[in-house]
């Protein structure tokens, strides 16, 4: 099992529904967010390129956050989902420093919080909240180990990229071109 997400930059309009859906689904306190949207603009008027990237924890294959965690609060569960056990976390910030994607932050209660791929939903066979609400249906979640999953097929047929491959973390959020 290797969960991953693919985001179609041809379709995303950057509305932020994924962000607010995550907030209400996961009780993310106001002023914080586990996911966010980056707008990319290139070129010069009138030859302009634009797309949006909905970003979150990349649930990397190689996890510097888990590696640097002194207590084991940061850990990887079935399917490669990276999680934080809140009452094992001491809030030292090592994992925040270790993450090249700014995906982790201090929850106001002190522990480190981040995207969980909505594992509580995934366990019930549902998509993560962000994926399930997206009005452009630009997000795909699934198992890369299953060659027949929609995401596997998309990654086979569509050109894609990941964020900061040079950071060496083998990120598992794919952006379809």
């Amino acid at each position, binding site marked *: 099992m290797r969960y991953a997400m693919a985001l179609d930059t041809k379709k995303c309009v950057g509305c932020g529904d994924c962000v607010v859906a995550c907030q209400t*689904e996961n009780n993310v306190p106001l002023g914080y967010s586990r996911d966010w949207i980056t707008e990319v603009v290139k070129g010069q008027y009138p030859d302009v390129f634009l797309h949006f990237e909905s970003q979150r924890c990349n649930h990397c294959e190689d996890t510097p956050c888990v590696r640097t965690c002194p207590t084991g609060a940061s850990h990887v569960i079935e399917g490669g989902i990276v999680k934080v056990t809140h*009452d094992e976390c001491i809030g030292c910030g090592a994992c925040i420093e270790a993450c090249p994607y700014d995906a982790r932050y201090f929850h106001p209660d002190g522990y480190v919080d981040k995207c969980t791929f909505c594992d509580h939903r995934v366990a019930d066979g549902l998509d993560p909240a962000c994926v399930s609400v997206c009005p452009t249906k630009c997000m795909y979640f699934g198992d890369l180990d299953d060659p027949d999953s929609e995401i596997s097929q998309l990654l086979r047929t569509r050109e894609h990229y990941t964020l900061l491959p040079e950071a060496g973390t083998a990120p598992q959020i794919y952006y379809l071109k």
Partner: protein
Amino acid sequence: MSKLNRRQFLKISGAATAGAAVLPATGGWFSSLFKEEPRPLLENEAVKVPTVCEVCFWNCAGWTYLDKEGKIRKIIGNETDPHSQGRLCPRGTGGLGMYYDDDRLKTPLIRETGKDGKQYFRKASWDEALDLVAAKMKEIDRKYGKESFALLFHGKTGPHFEHLFKAWGSQTMGEPAGAQCLITREAGFIATYGAGLASPEPTDIKNTDCLVLIGSHFGENMHNGHVQDISDLIDRGGTIITVDPRFSTMAGHSTKWLPIKPATDLALLLAWMNVIINEGLYDKEYVARYTYGFDLLKAHVQKYTPEWAEGVTTIPAGDIYETARMMGGAAPRVVVHPGRHTAWYGDDTQRSRAIAILNALLGSWGRKGGFYFPEKVHLPQEPHPPFPKPKWTWKDISRGKHKMAIMGITNEIIDHALPEYDGPYKVKAFFIAATNPIQSIPPEEKSKRALQNAEFVVVVDTMPAEITGYADVVLPEATYLERLDHIRNAHHRIPNLALRYPAVKPKYETKPGWWIAREIGLRLGLKDFYEWEDFEEVLDWQLRQVGSSIEEMKRIGVKHFPRKTPMYIDDYDEPYWFNTNTGKIELYSTDFAEWGYDPMPVYKPHPETPPGMLRLIYGRVPMHTFGRTLNNPNLFELRKDPELWVNPKVARIYGIENGQMIWLKNHKGKVSSFPVKVRVTERIRHDSVFLPHGFGNKGRIFVDGKVWEMSRAYGRGIADSEMISDVYIDPETGGTGMRSNFVQILTENPHQQKNNAS
């Protein structure tokens, strides 16, 4: 520490339940020891109550999710709803913030004047406030007649007060959604097809091959169903042509983007007709069968060549030919989208006519992949005595001047409330429900003068806004999650009904609109029009007439009904008859010819950008609808501030940097109240700036000596409406064109300068 102890601690301290989605970040490591960690609400634990979203006019149906404690946790789209198709937009998902917003209007307020002459609001009981409203309504009636009491409204709150006013005897009413938004579009399509578009627009994007967007900004507006359909179109590899002076979100997703010079849309539309007709790309059989005036149109558009249009629009003629051929190639599976907020330049009915005509040439009206024929449920109205006939209505105000004033023209109602108005239809008092005319009916000076001149103003709303400060009585309405409203019966592919049912009891001392309207009605002696106690009885009666019930609707939220007529024109057995004078699609409008309007659209130039100024283009950000959503804590978190888009070349000339705060001064010398953050971007032309709508809230009232305001939204950025000093009146409808306003960038705080000088 065991779990049990934590619970006890919570109980003892009486602390608020932890983990609400909208709880402000309290924090502190100490408290975390005693706090039960918030847990997501699992699907099988949730109590689901059907709702219809009120954050915008798309009115998507969804489910309000409550936890076991009865707390609203999230809102999710209803899978069977054709508007949302199970997916809400960010505003719908974040709609619960409206309920949790601490800045809501909480109790009835009555305006008082203190001994020092200063005015303020005092909290009042519902009885006192409603008695006062009823007494004032009677007083206005005695002095000027019921007709002088005007109703301005918006959204699903509106119908409750429409009913009240009609029952009482005033039909001086209008909504900004008409004259300030889509009336010109409706008029243009009615003149062409004998039918308007209404909402949602029956564009068959689901089946189209080519979508043309001119003045349509999907992805920035989140017209949910269409955004979803467009996304599927991208998946299908369909063609999207976007015409926009900005590199809009959709431009970024388009096959072809035509960066047009603002205010020249009509030139492009006419040039497209020219190519489509002259190159024979139009649907010949369809045109012959269903349209009237083709030859007249053909002759008319001969002068509008792409080469001519290039000079006007700055779009290369080659691109005009190319895009016209793309449309022709896909016809009839083409949608030239009519847009929605068509309050452009003062000849907007003609502009919409051109879009309607273009669709007719391509044969897309009533065709698969073009426009489908929508259908709604025949839902009987609850029986009540006939409404009394007013001596005059909104029609008398507007119809003389504007033959196509098909809805109440708000700006003319405002005109009739000005002190200088000296005619027979004087407006002396306002009842304002869920709209903020200071922002929604520019120019604000005029709206303010009308309100100052009114003898009595009632405001019904959920949030304090600029308008609240002009009220004599403020009646706090419950949010859509706390109230019952009319059944949503919008036309669609599939006739369907959707129920909004209260998920929770109204917070604070707020009341649902129907209750407020009924209480006033009873005080006015209109018992016959309110033969029920709870609005639920009305809905249940209505639903039973069509074989459903409140009980069933509470369970399913949305109910589908079979269609009675074909969805496409080709499926009609007998020849299709259009509701126009000729019974055909009028490429040449016989009505317009008779009334003295251009029977076919004629390009007329609009004000050019004065030297040293920039055209103010306004639009939306996807996470906000208008002023009322800005303070929603969840949506505020998504976008707190507007940004003024400035082209890098312009920024260089002005010497301004990305992120700098600047003020605006418009062509009439009006200076913005607040500064706005600059975004230097290649997404905007050098002759224009772009500002998203609804920000720059400056509403502030004093309640019992304390400031009451939208604490999050107050003072953030510039309100686009504040910079709109000139509106250009559309002759056919009376709608307001608001896009010919120009601004200058000020890098120094103009208010400080003034203070220093004085």
